[in-house]
């Protein structure tokens, strides 16, 4: 694969984590403008862990996810009783606070006669783990996509689990969920924490992919983009946000002939798409239809005896 393609694919993979993070909150009915804050926390925490403390990449990524997840839990509690626009603005305010705090954050250590570490607005250079350990771009791409695949698998399991049903139920009607005996507050904080962790993993990968982070990257633009990805791709399945990222970065950013007009085309397309499909390309209805079609095919295959199966009792099971 050529380097440019690897670069674009790595970018898509990393940004997908923030998009999935915003998507998870959308499932529970909340709009967050602030997932870029947890992305930033994950990036700085993981970067500091490898570049300054000499930790391994795996521990650093786990550490980044843990720090951003805990931050998300801490923010989740006071914003619990906020909804809709109020929640969206509160998360935006939090993420902007994080960004400005990183502009003020200086923590540098001299390593081999060179000052390394976050240096305010100048950013955090030389997160060189993947060079120092001879990990090439393609191997790192594989790492990103295996983590993404694991996350997607978790989302698929979530959609079929009780927890997934509870999340969607809270998203549809919080009062009804509460009346059904679901401790809504606890689940909302849980969702916020998981979403923060996801963004943090993405941030850790991002820091090591680009070897350089600065606070300016984590502005409101990134936050609203990651929210928009889920809505463009569709709210019916976790593949939706991925599709959104793919359309934006994969299709438009990569076609260099469009440079300069990218946003005009993208903006217009998104606006028109949302008129026709207000819950995105892969919304719940489409996902349901695909699932039904898939089950019919599976049934037909079984009936025509092409692929006999012992366990016919589960014939109706399929993607919801």
């Amino acid at each position, binding site marked *: 694969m050529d380097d440019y393609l690897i670069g674009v694919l790595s970018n898509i993979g990393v940004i997908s984590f923030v998009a999935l993070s915003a998507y998870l909150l*959308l499932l529970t*009915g909340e*709009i967050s403008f602030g997932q870029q804050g947890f992305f930033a926390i994950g990036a700085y925490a993981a970067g500091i862990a490898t570049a300054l403390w000499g930790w391994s990449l795996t521990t650093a990524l786990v550490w980044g996810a843990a720090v951003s997840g805990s931050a998300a839990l801490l923010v989740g509690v*006071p*914003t619990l*009783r*906020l*909804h*809709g*626009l*109020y929640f*969206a*603005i*509160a998360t935006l*305010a*939090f993420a*902007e*606070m994080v960004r*400005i*705090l990183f*502009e*003020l954050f200086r923590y540098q250590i001299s390593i081999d006669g060179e000052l390394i570490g976050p240096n305010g607005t100048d950013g955090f250079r030389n997160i060189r783990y993947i060079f120092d350990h001879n990990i090439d771009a393609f191997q790192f791409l594989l790492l990103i996509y295996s983590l993404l695949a694991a996350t997607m698998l978790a989302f698929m399991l979530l959609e079929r689990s009780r927890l997934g049903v509870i999340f969607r139920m809270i*998203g*549809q*009607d*919080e009062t009804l969920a509460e009346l059904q005996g679901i401790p809504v507050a606890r689940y909302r904080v849980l969702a916020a924490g998981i979403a923060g962790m996801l963004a943090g993993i993405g941030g850790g990968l991002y820091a090591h992919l680009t070897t350089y982070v600065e606070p300016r990257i984590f502005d*409101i633009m990134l936050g*609203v983009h990651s*929210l*928009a990805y889920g*809505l*463009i791709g569709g*709210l019916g399945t976790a593949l939706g946000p991925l599709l959104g990222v793919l359309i934006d970065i994969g299709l438009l950013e990569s076609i260099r002939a469009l440079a*300069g*007009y*990218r*946003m*005009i085309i*993208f*903006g*217009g*397309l*998104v*606006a*028109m798409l*949302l*008129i026709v499909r*207000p*819950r995105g390309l892969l919304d719940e209805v489409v996902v349901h239809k695909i699932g039904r079609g898939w089950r019919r095919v599976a049934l037909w295959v079984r009936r025509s005896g092409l692929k006999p199966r012992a366990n016919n009792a589960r014939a109706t099971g399929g993607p919801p």
Partner: protein
Amino acid sequence: MIDLIQNTVDGVMIGSSYGLLALGFTLIFGVMRRLDLAYGPSIMIGGYFGTLLYLHYGAGPFAVAIAVVIGAVIAGIYVERLCFAPMKAGAAIASMVSSFAIWMQLEQAAILVLPRHTYPFPPLATAAPLEFGPFLVRVDHLIMLACALALAAAVHIALYRTRFGLALRAIIGNPVAAHLVGINVRTAVLLAFAGASAVGGAAGFLVLAVDQQVTPMFGMWATLKGLIAMMIGGLGSVPGAVVGGLLLGIVEANSQWYFGPQIRDLVAYVVLFAFLVVRPQGLLGSAPEPAMPPKA
């Protein structure tokens, strides 16, 4: 003490423009029950109209002001037609994301027309600052404050003393009921959107004329300042928007003076976050209802 008073006076002046921005924002939100993220960028389009007129024809402040307002209204109507009018009821998030997409579009369009980072904007007044004892007051700041208060009063009168205002308040209260008593909701909403954009355009002109420059970043700046002031003052409240803007201006001016620009921005967000957590209805708003229904 002298510093504190001087900063507070400056803050009131700057804050009056925040208040105007918040006023347009709160009108749109009140009528739509949806957030228009492209509000600031449409004002920026107006600013670019004005700058073009100034650069190519040497237009004076008055002509530029009219151009800014007209530009903002045209962009605002474009946003309303594309992001709000065709959306089904209940698709509040779709409207918001759609307005964000149009924000990107407007910003890119502005950069394509005038590609440099900053362009000059005609000043409001170049007279020396007035002295009141130890305090200095810029003349253009005074004009800004006067215009802002006059416009806020005009909006208040339009809302509470005219038939159109009555119709708008009926729509804000209950769009379906308003429709049933014979109000043409779609037209009234479009007019309200245009009016709010005009108020925003006026605010944009005042800010740009005081700064004497326009950049593509102005759109984001206007959206954020308007949003913060609106939330602090209380969502949907006309006097709240003005008070919220003034408070934001005072807080910013003082924290800038004592701690520098980064802490100024940080303090603004801390105040916003604290208000949302402790008193979501803001200073003068009514208790929050679920502003956007949870169903997207």
